[in-house]
C-alpha cells in the first residue's frame, strides 16, 4: 500500500515537530541566566522584600505599585526592613538596580517576558 509511505512521512513530520526543541537547542545548551547586582544593591543586602519573594512576585508588586500611586495616591511603601520607599519604578527600583540589561533583561529575555514598562518609564542608561 503506497499510502503507508504517506503515513510514515506524516508520523515522522509530527514527531519532528514534537521534538523540535531538541533539534533546535542541539549544541547550544545555555544555562539559566544569573542576575547581576550592582554595588549599591549588594550593599543593601535586601530589596524591599527578601530576594526569593521578589523573584516570584516582583511583577505583582510593580502592578500593585502603579495602582497604588496612580489611583490611590499612596506613594510610600514600608519594606521588610522597616525602611520606607518611594513607590516609583524609575526612581526607586532603578536607582538601586541601575543595570537594567544585566538585572532585568537577562531573565526576561530568557523566559520571553517583554514587559511594557519601558515604553514610558525611564531607566538609567548604560554607559559603556
Amino acid at each position, binding site marked *: 500500500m503506497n499510502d503507508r509511505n504517506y503515513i510514515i512521512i506524516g508520523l515522522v513530520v509530527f514527531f519532528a515537530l514534537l521534538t523540535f526543541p531538541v533539534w533546535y537547542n542541539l549544541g547550544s545548551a545555555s544555562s539559566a541566566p544569573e542576575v547581576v547586582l550592582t554595588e549599591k544593591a549588594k550593599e543593601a543586602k535586601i530589596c524591599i522584600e*527578601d530576594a526569593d519573594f521578589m523573584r516570584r512576585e516582583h511583577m505583582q508588586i510593580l502592578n*500593585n505599585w502603579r495602582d*497604588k500611586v496612580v489611583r490611590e*495616591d499612596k506613594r510610600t*511603601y514600608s519594606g521588610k526592613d522597616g525602611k520606607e520607599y518611594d513607590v516609583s519604578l524609575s526612581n526607586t527600583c532603578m536607582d538601586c538596580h541601575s543595570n537594567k540589561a544585566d538585572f532585568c533583561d537577562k531573565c526576561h529575555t530568557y523566559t520571553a517576558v517583554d514587559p511594557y514598562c519601558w515604553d514610558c518609564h*525611564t531607566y538609567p542608561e548604560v554607559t559603556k
Partner: protein
Amino acid sequence: MENTRRKFLKLTGVSVLGLSSLSVMDVLDAKKAGAAADADPYAYPEKALTAQRWGMVVDTRKIDARTTKRIIDACHTAHNVPDFSDPNLPGFSPANARHTVKWIWDETYDHVFPEKADEFLADRLKKLPILTLCNQCANPPCVRVCPTRATFKREDGIVMMDFHRCIGCRFCMAACPYGSRSFNFRDPRPAIKKENKQYPTRMKGVVEKCNFCEERLAVGKQPACVEVSNGALVFGDLADPNSEVRKLLNTNYAIRRKQSLGTNPSVYYIV
C-alpha cells in the same frame, strides 16, 4: 437530572476547593516569607499637600507673552510633553504638523470665552494671551465616557489619567468641551527635547492632559506653572474659605469657561 446537577456541583465545588487549597497554601507561604502581612505597607506621603477640591485662579492681568512662554515651558519640561512640530522628527509630515500635544497653552480671548466675546471688547482682552489648561471639572464628561476607567476623578477633585490603562479610543477627547486633551499620534519619545527622569513619558496611542501636577503636590510642592508664574497663577483648596484662591475670588470678579455646559470647572479667570 436535578440530582445529577446537585451532585455535580457539590463535587466540583469540593474539587475546586481542593485544588485551590494548594494555591492558598502557596500564597500563605509566600506571605509568611515575604512582607509583614498584618499591616498595609502602602501609605500616603507625609509631606503631601492636600485639599478637598483643588482649584486655580488665573489672573490675566498679570500675564504677558513672556510669562506665558515660561509657564508653558516649565510645565512641558516637567511632564515630558512631546513637541511634534520639529520637521526633523521621524514620521513628520506637513499633514500631521498640527498633531500637537499640550497640557497648558495660550489662546485668544474669543476662543477661550466664545460666549463672552462681545462686539466691543476691550482692546487689551482682544490681544491678551490667555493660559488654557484642563479645567479639572467637578463634573467631568471625559470620566463618564472612558471605557477602561483610565480617566478618573480623585477625591481631591483632580481629574487623573492612568496611562497604563489608556487604550487610545479618544472618547474622552470627543467628550471634553475645552479641547484640553491631546493624543500621541506618533511615538512621543523622540519629540521630547529634554527628558525629566523623574517623570515617565507616554507611548504612541495614548491620550494625555494636565494633571494639576499631582506628582508635585505629593512631595509638598506647588504646581510647576504656579511656581514660575510670579503670582499670576494661584493654586489652592476651593473648599477652604480661607485659602488664597478663595480670598482672591472673594475680592475679584472671575469667570469660568463655558459654564453653561454644567461641567463645573475648577479653573477661574480674573479678567
